[in-house]
């Protein structure tokens, strides 16, 4: 799989030499035995080097470099306006929807440059899915249609495949038992928490390798939030997850790695336990202990 248009399949020259071992395919040997945790042999899913993002003249991200581990949860924390969401969106090129957005640096998905020449953003997004802050199921579609929309509009018509993928995705999103008898009901008839899990199922149905979550639980009540968090822990067995959150406890509970952003800079990045118990930077400590932000 790559992002090139069929006539441009020449692989991009490996610029960053250290990223070449990360080019291993996703289904590598450590996938079956144990869930990839901080302790397991780490494989970089996404390698970010010197990423700067500008909106017009305003620089939102300042030379950010970090490795996102495969089959693990990486949390992005920081006060509002620190560039968390922009960072997340630059990982599947969604920030380009803003007309005057511009980026510098290098982002590689399993070794492939996602900003390379002839790379098609649409194909990047098929491999790097996204769940948004506010649940946004399509109002003109039923629950089932919402799950399969990404497949159907990409040309998959086989009903057996669609049915199988519907059940599989809804099960992974922990929603199957609640909706299996009313897949034809309007998606907007679901509760807020159910709608958000439906959006996760919709993103999973196209079988991405990485799932980006932009404050997925910030609009939900505590019960629905804990369901989403359980779901995240379950999903990391198969997926690489990057989650932006305002909720410090959520980052501590659900993530393996934590990155603290402040004013467009990556202040500190490390294992979640280390960031929350023995941060190296004063600013990180102040933030995670609630002294500012």
């Amino acid at each position, binding site marked *: 799989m790559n992002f090139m248009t069929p006539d441009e399949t020449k692989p991009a020259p490996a610029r960053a030499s250290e990223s070449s071992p990360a080019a291993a395919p996703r289904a590598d040997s450590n996938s079956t035995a144990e869930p990839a945790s901080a302790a397991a042999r780490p494989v970089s899913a996404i390698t970010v080097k010197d990423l700067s993002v500008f909106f017009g003249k305003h620089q939102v991200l300042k030379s950010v470099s970090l490795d996102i581990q495969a089959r693990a949860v990486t949390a992005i924390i920081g006060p509002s306006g620190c560039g968390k969401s922009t960072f997340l969106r630059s990982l599947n090129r969604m920030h380009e929807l803003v007309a005057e957005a511009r980026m510098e640096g290098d982002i590689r998905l399993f070794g492939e440059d996602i900003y390379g020449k002839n790379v098609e953003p649409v194909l990047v997004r098929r491999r790097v899915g996204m769940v948004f802050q506010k649940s946004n199921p399509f109002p003109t579609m039923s629950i089932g249609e919402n799950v399969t*929309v990404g497949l159907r509009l990409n040309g998959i018509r086989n009903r057996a495949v669609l049915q199988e993928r519907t059940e599989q995705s809804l099960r992974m999103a922990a929603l199957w038992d609640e909706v299996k008898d009313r897949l034809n009901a309007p998606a907007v008839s679901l509760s807020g928490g159910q709608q958000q899990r439906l959006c996760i199922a919709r993103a999973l149905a196209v079988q991405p390798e990485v799932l980006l979550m932009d404050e997925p639980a910030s609009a939900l009540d505590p019960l629905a939030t804990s369901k989403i968090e359980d779901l995240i822990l379950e999903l990391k067995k198969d997926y690489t997850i990057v989650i932006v959150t305002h909720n410090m406890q959520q980052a501590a509970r659900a993530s393996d790695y934590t990155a603290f952003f402040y004013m467009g800079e990556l202040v500190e990045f490390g294992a979640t336990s280390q960031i929350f118990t023995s941060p190296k930077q004063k600013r990180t400590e102040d933030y995670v202990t609630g002294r500012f932000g």
Partner: protein
Amino acid sequence: MIVASANHRFRKFKSLAMNSLCIACALLVILPLVVILFYLVKMGASSLNLAFFTNLPQAPNQPGSGMANAIAGTLELLLLASFVGVPAGILGGIYLSEYGGERMNRWIRFWADVLNGVPSIVWGMLSYALVVIRMKAFSAWAGGLALGFIMLPLVLRTTEEVLVLVPRSYREAALALGLPQWKTIMRIVLPTALRGIVTGILLAMGRIAGETAPLLFTALGNDYWNHNLSGPIAALPLQIFKYAISAYDDWHRQAWAGALVLVALTFILSIGVRLFSRGRFQKST
């Protein structure tokens, strides 16, 4: 102090007076419509019978005169106009909402609003110059084109307005699934806004159904069945105009009946708008 002072009572009086004025003005808006409807029914209903809908126009004071060809002609002209105004209006609206840059959009919107304000007879003249002179004949094509010109900016602006109302989050969700932008627009954005777009089209049709001036020297009108779109075609407003300026009481009554049918037609279009506003899964806005 709980007891109202004189000052307070005066304020209450002012409030009541202004409220009453607002209600009166609101009713004033409805009043002309009620008067027109009442008058149309009074003058026209007596001439309405089955023959009016099935027969061709007859000489004055002949029994069984009708406007069947004009009713059919108006519907045909609406269809022809839609072929011009709907595709161009919708595609233009999509451009404004989804693709256009701010500078470009300002210009297009400005010109669309100018077009909207162009007197309808000017569109008739344009269509006359473009079609009638070249084809050397008055025709349904020319009439439809003139009405289509009027429809275009209306459909364009309503399409743009309802597309802009579709939340950005739906577009983002679709794009994040790896859908190309054109599919996002065709399969997610347009269906979400469909009710609004159809409402806009029906309202534009209602607006042009009664236009007379642009048809005077394009569709021209006739008194017989014409199934050739390259020839003159009858239309309700033209027939009403012709009958109303005639010298015969019988034709005057027919003109009233025609006007009643025309109002009923736009009324039916409005009801269509209401019905269509109840989409699948959605409550009317």
